[in-house]
């Protein structure tokens, strides 16, 4: 009598989790041999006549000296951010994370997205000051040195621009990489001092309902944040993935508001003023107040809602023939942990649950994976995420019904609207080419 695992190994249909080749995610979890057996039975190349292995030159000579600060291999030179303003013209400047060339959940510091509105200031950390004042009992001034002596906390948090994914407001799918579409989101471990700790020292006047955060950059970028967030999980971050914050990410200190739109995470932070009312600064009054189809506009959106996108395969990649592939992507929610990610290979007709890489952290990138056997025919790959609060990533139809879409495509670097979190779909053609499609 055949045991069930034998049947798994021989009967590929038993591994199917959903249509068009999706395989049960449990095949990924400690059952690699079973999967290999199922996929490779009798189709592996013969070993006879294989090229003998030779020593390469690098194995026969002493290598390079050890640098003080190491950088990636020269063979990885294409793994870089894309720049919206490479000639440093007098306007803002974006750099986007190359998600399609990365794996895991941590964005390397050199590849973390940045948006700066007046260049990157060169701040002398010894002269930088942070003041907390306004509706407090005692206004206080902090230096980087004094802040560095406070009890620290570390947390992994994504930061996402409120305008990330804005090309998806286009009425037709823009043929762009996941870097161009979703590259204004990154995830790092941030270490610093809880803002609530510092507010214990200044004291809070009960009239204070908001605080205004301001940077030391040339636009003195300023945002209003509810006191509620200050007392929850706001942090004055001093370190990014273990080292001092990168200049473009706010050196020497930035406000970190886990789950809130990137622009509110004020960089080069120099001032926090507690106030009764929001200041209605430019970026809250204009930029991050998205226009709705009825002509009104949302204000104080703040939250980066539950989202996911497949990073591999994705636009610009070409599958090299039928066979086993791993569908992999990123999911996150500004509300909390990712509960589950469902993946479809048939345009949303059937779905299977993806494996989530542990640990699944609140307001952090979560890597999902799904084994898939491409049969060489057309396929449409989708991912859809749920968070622990029950929020679900909307379908494109649901999203457009609520938020509208543009009448015609906008330039890919434009921010025609904000806070897009619907499903991204990749169409795989019979030639293996991956296109961006709306499914």
């Amino acid at each position, binding site marked *: 009598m055949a045991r069930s695992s034998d049947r798994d190994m021989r009967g590929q249909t038993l591994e199917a989790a959903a249509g068009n080749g999706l395989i049960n995610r449990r095949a990924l979890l400690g059952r690699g041999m079973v999967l290999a057996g199922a996929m490779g039975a009798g189709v592996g190349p013969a070993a006879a006549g294989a090229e003998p292995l030779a020593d390469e030159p690098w194995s026969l000579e002493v290598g390079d000296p050890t640098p003080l600060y190491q950088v990636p291999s020269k063979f990885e030179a294409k793994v870089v951010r894309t720049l919206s303003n490479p000639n440093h013209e007098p306007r803002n400047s974006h750099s986007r994370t190359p998600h399609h060339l990365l794996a895991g959940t941590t964005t390397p510091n050199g590849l973390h997205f940045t948006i700066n509105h007046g260049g990157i200031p060169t701040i002398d950390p010894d002269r930088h000051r942070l003041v907390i004042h306004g509706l407090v009992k005692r206004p206080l001034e902090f230096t980087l040195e004094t802040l560095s002596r*406070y009890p620290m906390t570390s947390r992994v948090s994504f930061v996402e621009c409120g305008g990330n994914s804005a090309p998806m407001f286009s009425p037709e799918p823009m043929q762009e990489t996941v870097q161009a579409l979703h590259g204004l989101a990154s995830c790092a471990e941030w270490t610093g001092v809880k803002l609530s700790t510092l507010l214990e020292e200044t004291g809070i006047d009960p009239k204070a309902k908001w605080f205004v955060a301001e940077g030391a950059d040339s636009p003195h970028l300023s945002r209003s944040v509810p006191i509620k967030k200050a007392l929850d999980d706001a942090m004055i971050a001093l370190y990014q993935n273990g080292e001092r914050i990168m200049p473009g990410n706010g050196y020497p200190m930035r406000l970190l508001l886990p789950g809130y739109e990137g622009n509110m995470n004020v960089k080069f932070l120099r*001032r926090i003023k507690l106030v009764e009312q929001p200041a209605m600064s430019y970026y809250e009054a204009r930029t991050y107040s998205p226009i709705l189809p009825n002509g009104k506009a949302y204000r*104080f959106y703040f939250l980066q809602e539950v989202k996911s996108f497949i990073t591999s395969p994705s636009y610009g990649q070409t599958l090299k023939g039928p066979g086993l592939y791993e569908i992999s992507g990123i999911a996150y929610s500004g509300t909390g942990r990712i509960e589950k990610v469902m993946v479809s290979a048939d345009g949303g007709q059937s779905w299977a649950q993806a494996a989530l890489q542990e640990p699944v952290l609140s307001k952090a990138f979560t890597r999902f994976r799904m084994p898939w056997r491409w049969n060489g025919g057309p396929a449409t790959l989708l991912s859809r995420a749920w968070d622990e609060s029950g929020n679900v990533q909307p379908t494109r139809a649901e999203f457009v019904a609520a938020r509208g879409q543009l009448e015609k495509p906008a330039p890919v670097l434009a921010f025609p609207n904000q806070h897009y979190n619907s499903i991204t779909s990749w169409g795989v053609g019979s030639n293996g080419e991956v296109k961006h499609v709306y499914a």
Partner: protein
Amino acid sequence: MFTPERAIFTASLLLAAMTGVSLAETPNFGKPIDEAAIANWDISILPDGTGLPKGSGTPARGAAIYAEKCSACHGDSGKGGIAAAVVSDKKIDGISAAQKTIKNFIGDSTTIFDFIRRAMPFQAPRSLTDDEVYALTAYILAENKLIGANEVMDAQTLPKVKMPNHDNFIIRFPDHI
């Protein structure tokens, strides 16, 4: 048992008792600073006018400053150039953010003053006097027909300017405020 930690703890309790302030169990490395010392940095303006400085300006004065310091980017008469238009009668039709103007979108007049003072001119922020910022704000409001051509803008008059789109916003997540 005597430990350094206990000594510090006792000392902080003693300090709290002496000053009558309830000091939290935090390092207290913050240096007290008075508002006068912060004044130069304290450039936040609230929609009710809180924080607006002394000084004033007229549209006519603003027109001269605009021509000299703003038009290279924002175009003649505020019609737009390499930077956005600051004078426009465009109506919003559809959801594209490119249509947002001061007149059709910005809800509070103080936002204009606040942004000019903290961020403009792009190449020389914080170089304008408060009078110049009032004058530029007056010029932009007057060219947009939101105030009269001769109205003076100052800490009393500016917050009273009614912006057409003021009541057209929906708070997205009220439970986060």
